[in-house]
Structures are given as C-alpha cells and as structure tokens.
C-alpha cells in the first residue's frame, strides 16, 4: 500500500540506533558490570560517609524543591493572571536562567553571596532555587493561566475570602501541576553536579560529585559504579512515585481556552504585580550582574586586568597555572560545532525514523530518551571506562567530547522535531499519493520540509547544551583540552584574585552566549507563531 519502503525507514534508523548502542548502551552495561563486585558493594555500603552523602543529597534536594515552590508561586501567579509591561521579558529572563550552564550558575552564586556564605549549603540551595524557579513559573503558571478567573470569582460570590479562595479552589486545582513540577525540580537537584563542584565544600557533596571524585580523583572505579547504581535506584523510585502521584491527582479538568491575562485594575493588584515582578527580576538578574562586577574588581580596586590578560595563561611572568582561557574558549566553540552537527543529524534521522516507523519507532524513541533519565555524569563515566582499551581506546580522540555532548543533546533535538512531524496531517500525504506521488516522493515533499524550522531551534538548544555541558565533560576532557566550563570551575577553585577574576570573565562570556541563544530562539519561535 502507501507505506514507505522498509529500506528507507531502516536506513534512517540505523545511525541513531547504532550510535545509541555503541555510545550509551554499551558504556552503561560496562558500568553495571563494574558495579557487580561484592567487595565494592560492601565497601561502599558499609562506609558511614556513603550514607552521609546519600542523606545530604536527599535533604538538600527536598529543601531545594520546597524553597523553589515557595519562591516560584508568586511569579507564577503574576505571569499567569496579569498582563503588564515586561511580562514576556520576565519569562525570557527566567528561561535564560534555567538554561544557564551549571558552572555559570555556581559562579554567579559565588559572586553575589558574601564570602561567609560561599561554599556552604546556602549557596547550593540559592543556586538550585534560582535555577528552577522557571520550572514552577512555566509548569504551574501554564495551568494557572487556564484556570478560569470566574471560578475564583464564583467562590468569592459564595462568601470565600481571597485566602479561602486560594486554599479551597486554586491550590487544589494547581496541585497536579505542582507535584509534577516538584518531581522535576527534585530530580534536577538530586543529581546536582556542576553547581556543587563550584560552590560546594567537602560537607556538601551529592552522590554525583562523589561518583566523580571516586572515579577520577581516587581511581576507585568499581566503588564509583556502585554509587551510580545506588543513585539510579533512588531516581527510579522517585520517578515511579511521581507517576503514581500524577495518576492519583489527575482529574479531567475542563481547561478552557484561556481568557488572556488582564491588566491589573485594582490599586492593590497593581502594587502586588509591580512588587513581585520587579523582585523576581532583581533576584534573577542580580547574581549575573555580580558576575560581571566580580570580573572587574580586586581587593585593591577596579581593574580590567583580568579581561585584558585573558589571552595568557601566565599569572606572573614565567608562572603558569596550566589553564589557558583562550584555548578553552576556542576548544569550546569547536566542540560546540561538532556536537551540534552530530546531534542535529542524528536527532533529525531519528525523528524521521520514529515518525515513519510505528511501533518499532517507539522503541527507538524510548531508547533515545534514556540519556535524560540517567545523568550526564553517568554517561561520561560509562564512556570513560568503556573506551579505554584497544581497539576502542578513544579516550584521547578529539571527537569523544563532542559525541558525549551530542548524546546529552539528542533527546532535546528529537523532542523539538518529532511533535512537528507527527502533527503533519496524514491526508496531505494521501493527497500527494492520489496526485501520483510514490510513498517516498510524497514523504520527501510533504513531511520532510516540516523538519527545517524546528531543527533550527533544536540546533540552538544543542549548541547551548554543548557550550555549558559539564557533567560528561568532567570525565572525558583531557588536560590541555579543557572546555570553558571546565576552565571556569578550575579557575574559581584556585586561590588568587586575578585567577578568580578570570574565572568570572569566562563565566560572563558563557552567560552572555547562553543569553544570546535563548533570545534568538525566543524571537524565532515568536515569529513562527
């Protein structure tokens, strides 16, 4: 009948499938095999330190989630309910903050907090909250926007005070969205790595950081593998709980087409909106302003020295720290280009294959999502211990870091493009068929052209992901080949105000680059609408 030739679908699927098998499934299997060691398991589980780390990882994630929810509800309310000058800008700022590289967020926290709070749990919580406010504003806000204002009005005409309306009507109706958002924030903060590497101290280590430390600093690969599995078990438990909770909460909410957010009419509303919106903007932007300030300030006063001497690795004539900022920048850009190219090509092939293949496509779809479910650290760790012997001793290959980045980025490329492909009306293909086009011809003229626009957005996302990627890179990059995030973490970890200032210079550059990507994507999507 009018189906695509099997050969074509297989041809599309083969590259993503093989790539997934070689660079994800195989390393993952190696990692699991490494963890099957009675000695390593008993050592890790018998060590008191392990449980301290598990406990810290858990409670800081819970605290981060609760705080994020408390901080995020006010801006979510303002954005969902009111129209005001700067509303779109506020959402863009929060989105930009959300996609900031983890080391940049860590650097920004170091920059804005007083020295006494640096490298404490407060810095960790601050970074986590700031990162994830966007999750609350976007997921909870989206549902809030669709709750009819008149439903709250109806409650008021029945005698409910504003607080009672919130408690009895708004809150219960937002609960499913809130628990979904909470699960996301919990997962993000439970697996926090980059932030902790930058702002953390020995007492504030997550399981991820401990995996990295054991594997790369102490050479205890088997113990690190056991910790990875421990973390995967915890994540799976949370995921199951979250799905259950969603199901329990889910009710057929007849969400109406939204009444557009209104200009606040009451004086009181105007004041609250202005206060919440400006406080949110200040809190979100403050740390990044501090980043720029710190790149230009030293104990002895204002100076542009760090910016001027960014192209030299020397701290003093003849004394070098071994990290060349400009090399790191160039290396990061090259890595970004390759990672983006790989992610876009593989992701596009995968999307086309998944959209065309029916049931088999679903397997590929699920498989390609796995790298999100595990973590970048797990990906990097697995690759590190798999590709270390001939004929696959690829650790020193220049392409191993871009491949790692692409693995992290492909799920986003697939998610951005697949929905668009699936939304193409099948009748269009049928129409092309009745006009004499073969299935392949119909596919290539009707379906494929829809790919380009979402692919451009996906490419920008992939570029941003690669620029800021830190987890996998921590395992895969070699000294002398540092990327920007690696260099930033290293510089900020060194004593010496000039080195620190240089760290802030690089962080400022990376923050600016990320901001540009977000604004470009934002514009692009706005124009497409």
């Amino acid at each position, binding site marked *: 009948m009018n189906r695509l030739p099997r050969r074509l679908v297989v041809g599309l699927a083969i590259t993503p499938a093989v790539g997934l098998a070689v660079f994800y499934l195989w390393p993952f299997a190696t990692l699991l095999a490494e963890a099957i060691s009675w000695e390593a398991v008993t050592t890790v589980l018998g060590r008191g330190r392990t449980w301290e780390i598990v406990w810290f990882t858990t409670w800081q994630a819970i605290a981060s989630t609760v705080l994020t929810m408390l901080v995020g509800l006010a801006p979510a309310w303002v954005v969902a309910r009111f129209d005001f000058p700067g509303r779109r800008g506020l959402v863009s700022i929060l989105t930009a903050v959300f996609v900031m590289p983890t080391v940049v967020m860590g650097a920004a926290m170091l920059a804005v907090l007083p020295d006494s709070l640096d490298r404490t749990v407060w810095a960790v919580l601050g970074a986590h909250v700031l990162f994830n406010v966007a999750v609350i504003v976007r997921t909870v806000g989206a549902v809030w926007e669709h709750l009819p204002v008149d439903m709250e009005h109806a409650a008021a005409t*029945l*005698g409910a005070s504003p607080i009672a309306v919130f408690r009895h009507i708004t809150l219960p109706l937002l609960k499913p969205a809130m628990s979904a958002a909470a699960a996301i924030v919990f997962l993000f903060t439970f697996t926090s790595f980059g932030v902790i590497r930058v702002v953390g101290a020995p007492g504030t280590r997550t399981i991820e950081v401990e995996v990295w430390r054991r594997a790369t600093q102490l050479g205890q690969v088997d113990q690190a593998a056991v910790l990875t599995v421990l973390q995967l078990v915890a994540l799976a438990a949370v995921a199951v709980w979250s799905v259950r909770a969603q199901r329990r909460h889910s009710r057929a909410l007849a969400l109406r087409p939204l009444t557009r957010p209104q200009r606040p009419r009451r004086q009181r509303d105007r004041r609250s909106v202005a206060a919440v919106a400006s406080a949110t903007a200040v809190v979100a932007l403050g740390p990044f302003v501090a980043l720029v300030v710190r790149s230009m300030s030293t104990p002895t006063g204002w100076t542009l020295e760090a910016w001027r001497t960014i192209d030299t690795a020397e701290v003093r004539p003849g004394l070098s720290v071994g990290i060349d900022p400009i090399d790191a920048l160039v290396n990061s850009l090259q890595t970004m280009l390759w990672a983006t190219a790989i992610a876009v090509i593989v992701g596009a092939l995968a999307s086309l294959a998944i959209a065309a293949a029916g049931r088999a496509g679903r397997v590929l779809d699920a498989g390609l999502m796995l790298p999100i479910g595990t973590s970048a650290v797990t990906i990097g760790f697995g690759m590190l211990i798999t590709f270390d012997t001939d004929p696959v001793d690829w650790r020193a290959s220049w392409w191993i870091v871009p491949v790692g980045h692409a693995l992290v980025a492909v799920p986003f490329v697939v998610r951005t493009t697949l929905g668009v492909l699936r939304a193409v009306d099948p009748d269009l293909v049928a129409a092309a068929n009745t006009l004499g086009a073969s299935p392949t011809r119909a596919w290539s003229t009707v379906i494929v052209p829809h790919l380009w626009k979402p692919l451009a957005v996906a490419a920008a996302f992939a570029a941003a992901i690669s620029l800021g990627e830190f987890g996998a890179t921590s395992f895969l990059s070699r000294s002398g080949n540092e990327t920007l995030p690696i260099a930033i973490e290293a510089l900020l970890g060194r004593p010496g105000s000039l080195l620190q200032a240089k760290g802030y210079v690089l962080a400022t550059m990376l923050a600016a680059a990320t901001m540009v990507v977000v604004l470009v994507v934002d514009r692009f999507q706005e124009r497409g609408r």
Partner: protein
Amino acid sequence: MTTSGSEVGVEHVTVSFDGEIVLDDVSLTIEPGAVIALVGGSGTGKSTLLRVIAGLLVPDTGRVLLDGCDITDTPTHRRGIGMVFQDNQLFPHLTVAENIAFGLKMAGAPPAEQRAQASRSLDEVGLAGFERRQATELSGGEAKRVALARTLATDPRVVLLDEPLTGLDRDLHDELMHDLADRLRRTDATAILVTHDHAEADAIADRTVELAGL
C-alpha cells in the same frame, strides 16, 4: 426563605477597558425582591454591569448601593450577592454536594447542616440523589441546575444571573427557562438576569431594562 431581597442601586457608574468606554455614566435602581432582566446586544456592557454589582470589577467612577449603603469598596465575599455564571463555574475537584455546600462552609456552618442543605437544594432543582456525583460528570442541564442551587443555597439577598441559558439547545433552554422563572419567583431575593433574548426576559422577569437606554 428567611432573608428578604435588598434594594440595589447603581449611581453614575463608568467603566472603561484600555481607554474604551464600556459603561458610560449608568444609573439604575432595582426595588427589593424584584426580578428584572437587563437586555441589550453584545458589547453593551450588560455583563460588565453585573460584575460591578458583584464587586468583581472596580468601576472607574460611580457607586454601588445595597439598601442605601455604599458597597463600592466592599469585597465580593462580604456583599452577600450570589451569582450564576454563564459557564456555571462548578468546582471540578468537588462533588455536587460539596459544590452546593461551599457557601455554607465558607459561612462556617457545621458539616451536618451543609449536607442537609445540599440535599434540600438538590431536591428543589429536581436532582435528588446527585450528592456524590463529581461536578465534571454532569450533563449541561444538570450542571446548570447545580450552579443555580449552589447560588441559592446561601440564601443571598441579591442573585445575579449572567446569560445563564445561553448555549443550551432549544428544548433544554425552554425547560430550564420555566424552572428558573418559577424558582426565582419563589425566593424573596432581588434578581438581575442578563440576557440578549427578549422572550427569555419576558418569561422570567417582572420588568425589562434596555441597557442601551440607560
């Protein structure tokens, strides 16, 4: 019905949205216990006027009076004015009984009284036995009856109805129209019905007011 209806007064009310004037110096007095219909084409500000009376919208200028007292600055929940919305606005996370008892709960009535009143109200609108249904499972006509029962359960002094019968099919519309007329006549509450349908206005209200003429 214990409470009697209130006199509703609107004095020189003006409302504009983004510079566009929707209500221009509107004044109106409705005697206690009357059932009146506000009619006018779309865009004449009928619903806007109801919202001003309910306290859901602050007028740019002018006053709203209840039995001669200025309530312009009184928040909605302290006005004792009930309202039936065009799309019902039943609370989807509550049962039918909980929806109807919501006002009593807000007033602090004990649970037993809430339950008894809910059953009584359901009886009155012909939906006996519907207590434990979810609000989302109701048909269009049932939801409308529950919305009316919910508003009347607290015995409000004034009942506002914002195009309550719009969007229903013909038979259901006519049936509900008669029920509504009957139900409103049996309460002492002052009622203001907003509609664009003159036949509906004539069937339900004692008196019709053309908004364009105010």
